[in-house]
């Protein structure tokens, strides 16, 4: 079984600044992986970044990077140089099982202010 917890219902940041979104998880899987997805108000869920649990190196994708602390079961997302288009609901998710069913957190609403 997997659980994912996002303890920040809402966050805000000024344009061009950096913000970090928190996520903790619990899983009985040995071979799992983690995601951050972004869901703008139009509701299309978009992949932001993926982290394999067996990899020690933190994943990065342009302005987006993660801080993966496996022992602490923590998986935070850092957004650098925030842009207005980053305004969205952000979901942390864990995947496992043989086929990859996802378990999502409750989401964090991020607002980027000009």
């Amino acid at each position, binding site marked *: 079984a997997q659980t994912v917890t996002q303890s920040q219902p809402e966050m805000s940041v000024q344009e061009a600044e950096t913000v970090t979104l928190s996520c903790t998880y619990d899983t009985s899987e040995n071979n799992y992986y983690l995601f951050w997805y972004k869901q703008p108000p139009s*509701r299309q869920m978009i992949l932001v970044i993926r982290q394999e649990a067996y990899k020690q190196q933190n994943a990065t994708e342009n302005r987006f990077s993660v801080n993966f602390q496996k022992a602490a079961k923590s998986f935070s997302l850092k957004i650098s140089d925030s842009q207005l288009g980053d305004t969205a609901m952000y979901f942390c998710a864990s995947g496992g099982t043989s086929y*990859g069913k996802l378990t999502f957190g*409750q989401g964090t609403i991020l607002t980027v202010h000009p």
Partner: protein
Amino acid sequence: GAGVSQSPRYKVAKRGQDVALRCDPISGHVSLFWYQQALGQGPEFLTYFQNEAQLDKSGLPSDRFFAERPEGSVSTLKIQRTQQEDSAVYLCASSSGNRETQYFGPGTRLLVL
């Protein structure tokens, strides 16, 4: 190429009506998932297909929910005798194989009155 598409985008049903929600996955994707997203919440797993085989339906909330993917491409989620608690956004996602990244469609927003 084209992403995952879903139709209709919005559906209003009277309580007790049957509804059918359609998902067109990315061409060639063997894995297809349905999730239910209540307002302000994260998506929750409903069911999984590998090609035409429904391998996991553990998330379907009741026997009023039924999903199929007869030819291993398009999938339909059917809800019989809709109830108000069925109101949610229904998301479809597909992936190229086991444990590969899932790509989501825009969802169908269902409102049961």
